[in-house]
């Protein structure tokens, strides 16, 4: 403690200075309070009010982020005495998170399952707002403490959201599985963090002595610590072997929550992963753990596991869950490059994935709403009944597969070229294997993605099913997302140059 005293004023100054660049998060904190208050104050129709407030707030956060984006330029900033790191790519991820969160908040009441929730949805918005704050911090965190804090913050919010529909057995089951798996993962991660802390002597990842200390430590211990931490992050990314919860939870949760789970923590998780790896990659002295091999192997297995297992699926949400695992693997490929171009590619890929996945889940919700269709069999012949929705479905799936003309294709090309570029310099066979796996799993993914158009258009409807009211707003949103996908397919530079 005595050693700390002389620094206090400097530390405090740093805190106040940092607040300036902490505007979006501050907004979020305020928003969180407001929404909570709103939820308490409004007795009737509070869901609606809260939702509007949240949406408006998230837009504001987005704007604030944009301001930050312009301000930071190419600099790298450390906030709060090195607790948080801020640079271009982080901010981009935050913006993607904000935008997607905005869309998901819109999406919430459009889903019948959630709307029928007895208690209204005011608290859901509160939880989401808080989780967005957690996601922001997760993306920016540069110390082990902030990492753990933010991960837990997001986790708790996610647990609540998954188990949100208390009246549904599935939701409860999904919640239980998620919470048990998640807590175990975070416990493991915390243990890893404690070891890492002990070995490195610092919580700050960007501490100058970090690598030196770790290099002196026992390789097995360091590996254990790193692997345990990565396991915690991997849980968020749903990397094999930490993906087991994914299908069950995605299927059991309400569709907007699935959308939330499949996009936001994943994006933030990638941000976190990149930040966590940066010090090791930046320092050529680091020899203890070969991240390229580790992540490549994980990426390859993840791609294979996700895409191949998806072939079996009948439940649309479950299918998308597995495909999401596959996409994680593919995005890992971009991470493995550890190059600026790779990070750009990663960000673009994640953004496109977010849009397409959100769209498909919205459509899953749309068909569940209108036709009570959850399995592929229920989709038979719906294409002719709902042409617009079905065409959008095809477009989004095309993007997820990575066939032109769609944003997904461009994302894939950019990732491939980033990996290639790195391969050309180092001739690492792992990278080539990753490329091959990426290509093969693309074909495999077509196999199951195509099933949806197949059922929609090619199969004949067997029996006339009762029809429920249509959901115009949801449809409009989906059309916008599909248009965005095509637009980015033709002009990827609109978005990609921001990354």
């Amino acid at each position, binding site marked *: 403690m005595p050693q700390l005293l002389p620094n206090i004023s400097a530390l405090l100054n740093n805190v106040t200075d940092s607040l300036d660049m902490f505007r979006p998060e501050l907004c979020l904190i305020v928003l969180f309070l407001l929404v909570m208050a709103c939820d308490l104050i409004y007795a009737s129709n509070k869901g609606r009010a809260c939702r509007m407030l949240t949406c408006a707030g998230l837009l504001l956060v987005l704007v604030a982020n944009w301001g930050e984006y312009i301000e930071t330029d190419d600099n790298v900033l450390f906030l709060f005495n090195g607790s948080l790191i801020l640079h271009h790519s982080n901010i981009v991820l935050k913006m993607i998170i904000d935008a997607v969160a905005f869309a998901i908040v819109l999406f919430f009441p459009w889903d019948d399952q959630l709307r029928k929730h007895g208690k209204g949805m005011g608290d859901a918005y509160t939880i989401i707002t808080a989780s967005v704050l957690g996601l922001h911090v997760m993306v920016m965190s540069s110390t082990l403490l902030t990492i753990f804090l933010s991960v837990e913050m997001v986790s708790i919010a996610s647990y609540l959201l998954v188990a949100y529909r208390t009246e549904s057995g599935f939701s409860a089951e999904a919640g239980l599985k998620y919470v*048990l798996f998640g807590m175990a993962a975070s416990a493991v991660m915390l243990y890893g963090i404690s070891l890492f802390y002990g070995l490195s002597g610092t919580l700050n990842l960007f501490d100058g002595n970090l690598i030196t200390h770790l290099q002196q430590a026992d390789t097995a211990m360091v590996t254990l610590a790193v692997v345990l931490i990565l396991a915690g992050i991997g849980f968020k990314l749903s990397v094999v072997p930490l993906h087991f919860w994914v299908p069950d939870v995605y299927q059991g949760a309400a569709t907007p929550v699935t959308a939330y789970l499949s996009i936001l923590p994943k994006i933030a998780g990638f941000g976190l992963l990149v930040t966590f790896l940066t010090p090791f990659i930046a320092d050529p002295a680091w020899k203890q753990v070969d991240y390229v091999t580790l992540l490549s192997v994980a990426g390859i297995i993840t791609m294979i596991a996700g895409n191949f297992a998806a072939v079996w699926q009948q439940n649309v949400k479950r299918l998308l869950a597995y495909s999401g695992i596959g996409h994680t693997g593919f995005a890992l490929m971009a991470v493995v490059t550890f190059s600026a171009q790779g990070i750009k590619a990663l960000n673009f890929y994640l953004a496109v994935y977010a849009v397409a996945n959100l769209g498909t889940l919205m459509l899953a919700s749309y068909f569940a709403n209108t036709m009570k269709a959850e399995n592929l069999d229920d989709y038979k012949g719906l294409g002719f009944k709902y042409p617009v929705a079905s065409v959008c479905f095809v477009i989004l799936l095309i993007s997820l597969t990575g066939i032109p003309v769609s944003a997904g294709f461009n994302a894939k090309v950019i990732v491939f070229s980033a990996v290639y570029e790195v391969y050309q310099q180092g001739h690492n066979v792992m990278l080539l294997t990753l490329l091959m796996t990426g290509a093969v799993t693309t074909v495999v993914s077509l196999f199951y993605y195509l099933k949806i158009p197949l059922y929609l258009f090619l199969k004949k409807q067997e029996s006339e099913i009762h029809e429920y009211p249509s959901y115009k707003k949801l449809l409009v949103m989906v059309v916008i997302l599909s248009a965005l996908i095509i637009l980015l397919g033709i002009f990827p530079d609109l978005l990609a140059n921001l990354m």
Partner: protein
Amino acid sequence: MITLTHYLLVSAALFSIGLYVILSKRNAIQILIGIELMLNAAILNLVAFGKFDKINNGGQSFALFAIVLAAATTAVALAIVLNVYRRYKTIDPDKINQLKD
């Protein structure tokens, strides 16, 4: 003299016990207890290591955060377990397996 090694051994033992508990017990609450044990193993580590981190006291403060978060998470988890019990009339995780491939 209690050295760092002792702390580490205890924590490792705690972690392992926790791990065993979460894998073997047929009761969600017991699993939560197991997780709690694992968390505490880590917290013990953090505090033990924190002794050597003179400047920031990072370990100790981390431990505080971790304890709080563990409590929060457990609260949420218990709520969920409660809800599960309401739907399934059991909290044996093995019997709650409607969602599967």
